[in-house]
């Protein structure tokens, strides 16, 4: 059978809209060296490299083969993972299986996106994810799909646009304590409501940005983590579920038994021995591409009942001083280098458990959850603990 796996280091670049000062291998090099430094290892200690981004958005084919030079992949076993928005968590999960398999005892996982490098554009790319005959003419990339899901949530729960806007206010507040976050400017509910409409009900400020940035995470076996003597985040569960190719099917699943985030979290909690997530988890890094998503997904994650996601925001449960701080990093709403975003959730959650989250550390965090989301209602989960 396989071996236990732990994260002992991570690194990120300072995410922003455009990195003009580095090319992609150089940008990745920043994240990789920071991760190795955090882990107290050198690249020669690494058995394999797993890397990924959304090359189609960036306009660079076989992007990993160029980028790897900055990531220490030279003469190492390497592979590329790419699954859309959840690429980052798919990478994180692949890193887990690399070491769990026993084929290697250490693995460096790298995710990045740098749309500016080749005049890339996200929505142009995402539109091609949809069926060319039936969906592409009417869907505007990820935004319209998320807009439809938000409308479904609003009609089912009565949540208003103003309530959803509170999620953005909260996220920006938290991002100010995160040196890597892209968007840190404070916003008010009025700012969000007045921002340009993209796809009802999503306005400009309801949506995550696109950022240039990279993230790297170091995985080792439990035995190696113990020998290493540094504080580790042990991986207790990984899960991944998707359920549709056509957006019409996604709406059909909303609020139903087959909701992928619900399924994924139920399976992950069972593996990790989590009976009540609100009590048993200390911090959550949730992949929220838009404001409404965070509200409905906290419900699907079992933090509260249907329609009650907003209460967790309003009563401070998810604030830094609350019972279950959500997205101390500022989340995806503040930072979104697509290929890295899910990996950043992983890096942030594991850093919390390792006590290495700096100014946005949640005191005494022992158990953390990281989620990833992408097309085809693809939801992924990793759960970390400070003990093996």
């Amino acid at each position, binding site marked *: *059978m*396989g*071996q236990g796996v732990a994260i002992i280091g991570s690194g990120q670049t300072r995410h922003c809209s455009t990195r003009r000062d580095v*090319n992609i291998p150089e940008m990745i090099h920043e994240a990789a060296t920071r991760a190795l430094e955090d882990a107290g290892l050198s690249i020669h200690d690494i058995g394999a490299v797993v890397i*990924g981004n*959304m*090359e*189609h*958005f960036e*306009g*660079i*084919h*076989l992007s*990993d*083969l*160029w980028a*790897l*030079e900055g990531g220490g*992949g*030279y*003469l*190492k*076993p*390497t*592979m*590329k*993972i*790419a*699954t*859309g928005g959840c690429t980052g968590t*798919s990478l994180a*999960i*692949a890193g887990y*299986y*690399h070491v*769990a*398999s*026993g*084929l290697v005892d250490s693995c460096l996982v790298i995710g990045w996106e740098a749309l500016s*490098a*080749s005049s890339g554009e996200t929505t142009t*790319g*995402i*539109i*091609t*994810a949809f*069926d060319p005959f039936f969906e592409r003419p009417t869907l505007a990339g990820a935004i319209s799909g998320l807009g439809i899901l938000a409308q479904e949530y609003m009609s089912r729960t009565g949540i208003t646009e103003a309530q959803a806007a509170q999620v953005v206010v909260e996220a920006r507040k938290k991002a100010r304590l995160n040196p890597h976050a892209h968007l840190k400017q404070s916003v008010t509910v009025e700012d969000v409501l007045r921002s340009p409409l993209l796809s009802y009900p999503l306005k400009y400020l309801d949506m995550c940005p696109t950022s240039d940035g990279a993230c790297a995470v170091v995985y080792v076996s439990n035995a190696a983590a113990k020998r290493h003597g540094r504080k580790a985040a042990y991986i207790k569960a*990984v899960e*991944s*579920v*998707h*359920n*549709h*190719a056509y957006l019409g099917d996604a709406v059909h699943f909303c609020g139903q038994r*087959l909701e*992928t985030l619900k*399924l994924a979290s139920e399976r992950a909690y069972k593996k990790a021995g989590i009976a009540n997530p609100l009590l048993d988890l200390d911090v959550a890094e949730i992949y929220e591409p838009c404001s409404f998503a965070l509200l409905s997904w906290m419900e699907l994650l079992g933090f509260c009942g249907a329609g009650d996601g907003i209460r967790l925001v309003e009563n401070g449960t998810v604030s830094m001083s609350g019972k279950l701080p959500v997205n101390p990093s500022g989340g995806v709403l503040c930072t979104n280098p697509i290929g890295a975003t899910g990996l950043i959730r992983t890096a942030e959650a594991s850093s919390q458990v390792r006590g290495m989250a700096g100014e946005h550390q949640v005191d005494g965090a022992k158990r953390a959850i990281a989620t990833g989301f*992408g*097309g*085809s209602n693809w939801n992924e989960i990793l759960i970390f603990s400070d003990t093996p």
Partner: protein
Amino acid sequence: MKPRRIAVIDAEQTRCEARKAEISYAELVYEPVHALLTRTGLHYDDIDTVVTCSSDFLDGRTISDMAIQEVTGSIGKSASKVSSDGSFALVYAWMRLLAGEFETCLVVAHSKCSEGHQALIENAAFDPLLQRSLGLTHLVAAAIQAQCLLNEGKFTREQFAQAAVHDLKNAARNPYAHHGGEYSVEEILASEPVCDPIRPLEIAPYSDGAACLLLVTESWLRKRAWKSEVAWVEGLGYCTENNDLGDKRLSENPALRKAAGEAYKMAGIRSPEKDLQFVEISSAFSYQTPLWLEEMGLAGRTSGQALNLSGGLMGANPGFASGLIRVCEAVRQVRERPGSRGLAHGMNGFPGQSHCVWLFRSGAAHQGDA
């Protein structure tokens, strides 16, 4: 810690074509998956996890696996997508089974090269700042490497042509291939180079096609009392070298040498030229064959070792599926001769930046070592 023994129980390919205009990606992949399930008597419920492989660029579809999720049985299950060659997808599949959580994994790879303008796609793989504007494509990069090999006196034009003649002849007999025939070294050498020194018949075609296989654990085979011969996984090595053409000695390939060496070590193979009965390698251009064989320690192979019975990439080269097809072929070949050993080689990047080497041995489904 004793690793689980893992085997491929069956593999299926599509008949590749230059252009499968009338079918969608889902239909393309449904064909081999359905054939495999039918032949093995299995159902989607028997598949615990799925690893797919495709290229968003080649497909012209972002999250290219979305188009095929419904036919791979991955809905509601843990799955992922590798975006290197299909042979690398098998690596991740193997890891998922070795980790102990799953008993079976379906591996699927597909590409429809006809959907895109290949030269433009390939050009987009080169450094956007410094190299793209030179008009580099896989063909141009390959020609540069072939010329280096000739300049250094490592191989001759006759050897390049001979490798093409060999593969094209086998491809003509392969019902899954769409390109091949009987040619002579002389007629190839007499033809006009497309990109000096590479001749038209020395270039693998672009194809549309898909392949799949089912990877299972030994305990699953025992529980099912599986009867047919399987292909046991004996060894794996995979490795990537640097990217920039100007940064490396194009007349050698340390990544392949390392990958093959690790695979042989894992499988306990000391004399690959003698110990392997079947070899399926990925040469997108025929000049690569003598170089790959040399780096894999197979340069002195005897006639007793079958090379590219399928015709290799010369017969069909459906992008990211090509390496998985090499695996499917090696699996098929060793299963037809119980106890035999086979090598399957896949690669990614130009010209051969990243390599994956698999070793299989056929044997009974639930015994000890064959």
